[in-house]
């Protein structure tokens, strides 16, 4: 299972829909996508992880890297995730305090705080 990526614009947000497995092999593709978006001026990102089957610390590192990049432009990076096994990884690494995590894309797109 490879990584799938697609992006769409909703208002002033860019939604990145990620599917498949984010690991040491596929994470560079996600990193490239996030870097490219920031370079193109998209600073408010929503990463939709509903179709992610596997996430490891390499993937977390890429998301943290993305967060640093958007913050350098006073942007935001929000996550959409309902899967317990994925949320667990954010919890044990303390990253639930770092990322705003939403249950739906709509909620993430409309969030302002």
């Amino acid at each position, binding site marked *: 299972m490879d990584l799938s990526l697609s992006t769409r614009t909703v208002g002033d947000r860019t939604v990145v829909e990620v599917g498949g497995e984010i690991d040491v*092999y596929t994470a560079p593709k996600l990193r490239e996508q996030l870097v490219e978006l920031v370079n193109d001026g998209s600073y408010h990102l929503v990463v939709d992880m509903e179709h992610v089957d596997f996430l490891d610390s390499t993937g977390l590192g890429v998301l943290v890297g993305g967060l640093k990049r958007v913050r350098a432009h006073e942007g935001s990076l929000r996550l959409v995730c309902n899967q317990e096994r994925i949320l667990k990884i954010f919890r044990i690494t303390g990253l639930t305090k770092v990322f705003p995590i939403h249950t739906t894309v709509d909620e993430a797109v409309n969030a302002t705080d």
Partner: protein
Amino acid sequence: MATVELRFSALPEHVRTARLVAAAVARRAGVDEAALDEVRLAVGEACSRAVGLHRSNGVDMPVRVVLTEEEKKFSIEVGDEVPETPSGPGARTADEAAGHPVASGESGTEEAEDEGTMGLAVISGLVDDVEVTSGPGGGTIRMSWPTTPTVELP
């Protein structure tokens, strides 16, 4: 004797294979279905770390994964061939970064370092029985999960 032993070239694309094999052998060994996600993730983290260590230290030997079905537990050993440095076990990931000054933001070095540390954090957060050792011959991460005995059909 190991139930299944796996050696793979230190390349990121093989880590998924190691995860799949480990999960399959763990399931067969009687590891609780709910814990298989943990097995998959922990093995992936340990293998990613070993692959990273081999690559950043220019070691071209394979990464070793030993899966052993024991009486009441299933154990996994992931070994790398990167010798211990004077800074002690577990410090090797930080040492790698020390060799390359961290340029904030762009270089990716900082992220790579975060990942190394986070990998171990994930493993220790996931697995109750885990031991990280390092010696002159390389490092090893040992993990185990309890198994429930299955009724053998005649």
